[in-house]
């Protein structure tokens, strides 16, 4: 034990010695934080009342941040104060930042198109920017403090967005359930983090990975791994923390559900990938997977158990849903299961790297197909006032463009060729099969077959079910709606038929770090 005051003097000296970190590399995140303040000030200056200004401002700022990330040069290596590197804006975080920002942009667009009076409009955009900034930092955090703060930023903004329609009983209930589950699971995760710190004496993932590899298996570390996984599982909507997901997605406005389903899940997987492979994918230490020896590490065991339970629960519970929004919630749980399945083979070898690239690739596709499907829900709630699948009846005849586009998204979510979803599923399953986990892959395939049944439900309503006289579908998409839906469907087909080689290469580049 070292006395406190000399220690403090020592740390202060270290901080004074160090030079100013290169913050320019954190610019996109900084812009998002700045927008939080800008919108608050604009709101203060121009007073209450709805305005077309906020969506334009938000979409503009998000587009600028997106371009900054897209065209900015990637220079790996963490940024931080006083010899305490905390954020690494590397290639892996870059590709996930693109996913978050694209989702944020689309969410604002959906809110616009939903023509719902959101009330207190400026605050919605403030919270959204807070969420996006938190996600960008979460994807690049390389130590526990930064990781925890970014994680909580994403969580709390998510709670506020889910309960945003505070005058709506279902909205308030969704928010309450979300905040209760979220706060408990993050407290559990925090306790796990304190145990990890106790064992290793460091906050840096890289140092922790080294120390853990040397420490070997210990009961308290198993407990810590389970606790930390609890926090991750909550945000990813994976077993055993998936209970909030259907209620929250159903109770929140459809655009918010879309945002949570894509961006929030991508954020936690970005952090998870970094934790799993810390030390470099092609480097030496496969981080936490050393906990129980290399072959059947405790982390791997947790991931496999959770993956099987998550996808089975998600797919089977989705079978009996009549609300499309709730069904998509279960489908998003099932997808978390597939992703965890592939995450369980991540390692330092070539196969492990392919698994990681597969997850990144899947998120790029998941972004398109899931947001597209949620746009259809947005339209249903706007025009028909319900997300019930029966509201789609007869769409195939009345609005063929919308129906066919939606069908493509559903095919892609199921993983049927010739859509991008097929290619994505292939890349998720391939590393698992190649690793020799045949049983795990078989469970995944059976689940895929089950999902075919519930994804076919909306198809049956749209194309096969006969319309009842006087009960025609109330959906009235205008030209812009059709353009948006088509814009989501066309890339899925193009990517599925050809051209996915480029995107695969993009994913491979993102995970290939210089050792």
């Amino acid at each position: 034990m070292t006395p406190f005051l000399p220690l403090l003097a020592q740390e202060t000296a270290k901080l004074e010695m160090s030079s100013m970190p290169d913050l320019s590399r954190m610019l996109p995140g900084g812009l998002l934080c700045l927008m939080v303040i800008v919108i608050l000030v604009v709101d203060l200056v121009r007073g209450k009342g709805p305005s077309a200004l906020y969506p334009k401002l938000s979409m503009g700022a998000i587009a600028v941040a997106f371009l900054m990330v897209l065209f900015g040069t990637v220079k790996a290596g963490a940024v931080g104060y006083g010899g305490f590197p905390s954020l690494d804006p590397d290639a892996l975080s870059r590709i996930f930042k693109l996913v978050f920002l694209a989702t944020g942009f689309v969410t604002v667009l959906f809110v616009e198109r939903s023509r719902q009076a959101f009330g207190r409009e400026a605050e919605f955009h403030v919270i959204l920017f807070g969420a996006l900034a938190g996600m960008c930092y979460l994807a690049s955090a390389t130590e526990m403090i930064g990781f925890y703060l970014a994680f909580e930023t994403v969580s709390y903004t998510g709670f506020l967005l889910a309960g945003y329609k505070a005058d709506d009983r279902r909205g308030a209930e969704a928010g309450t359930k979300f905040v209760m589950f979220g706060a408990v699971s993050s407290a559990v995760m925090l306790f796990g983090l304190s145990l990890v710190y106790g064992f290793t004496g460091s906050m840096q993932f890289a140092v922790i990975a080294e120390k853990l590899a040397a420490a070997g298996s210990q009961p308290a570390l198993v407990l810590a791994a389970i606790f930390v996984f609890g926090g991750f599982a909550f945000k990813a909507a994976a077993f055993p923390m998936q209970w909030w997901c259907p209620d929250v997605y159903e109770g929140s406005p459809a655009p918010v559900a879309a945002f949570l389903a894509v961006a929030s899940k991508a954020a936690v997987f970005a952090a998870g990938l970094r934790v799993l492979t810390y030390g470099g994918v092609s480097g030496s230490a496969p981080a936490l997977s050393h906990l129980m020896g290399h072959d059947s590490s405790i982390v791997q065991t947790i991931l496999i158990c959770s993956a099987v339970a998550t996808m089975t629960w998600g797919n089977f519970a989705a079978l009996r849903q009549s609300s499309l929004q709730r069904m998509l919630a279960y489908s998003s749980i099932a997808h978390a299961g597939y992703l965890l399945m592939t995450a369980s083979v991540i390692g330092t070898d070539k196969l492990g790297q392919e698994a990681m690239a597969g997850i990144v690739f899947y998120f790029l596709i998941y972004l398109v197909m899931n947001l597209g499907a949620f746009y259809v829900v947005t339209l249903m709630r706007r025009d028909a006032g319900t997300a019930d699948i029966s509201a789609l009846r007869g769409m195939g005849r009345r609005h063929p463009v919308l129906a066919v586009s939606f069908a493509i998204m559903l095919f892609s979510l199921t993983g049927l060729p010739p859509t991008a979803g097929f290619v994505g599923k292939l890349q998720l399953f391939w590393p698992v099969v190649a690793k020799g986990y045949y049983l795990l892959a078989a469970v995944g395939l059976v689940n895929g077959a089950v999902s075919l049944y519930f994804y076919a439900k909306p198809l049956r309503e749209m194309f096969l079910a006969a319309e009842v006289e006087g009960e025609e579908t109330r959906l009235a998409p205008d030209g812009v709606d059709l353009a948006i839906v088509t814009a989501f469907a066309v890339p899925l087909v193009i990517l599925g038929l050809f051209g996915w080689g480029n995107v695969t290469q993009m994913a491979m580049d993102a995970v290939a770090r210089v050792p």
Partner: protein
Amino acid sequence: MLPQVTTAHYIVLSALLFAIGLFGVVTRKNVVVILMGLELMLNAANLAFVAFSRHHGNLQGQVFTFFVIAVAAAEAAVALSILMALFRLKGSVTLDDATELKG
């Protein structure tokens, strides 16, 4: 003479606090009481961080604690504001009344 207080004592206390908090969270139906249990869980983690920080002779654990306190304040603000909305609409803050969404 009193026995010396070691890091292990702090960790046992922290684990007990955490267990009490978790027990409260799992068994109680009133959301306000659940939030109290949550505070216990967060502070259990804080205690562990500070104890480990002294044990390892670096300040990172203590720094983390400050951030956790700030996050706990944010959590209370967010959770209570959502609870206010629920209370206004349903007239109660127990989880048993929040059962409209299911299936």
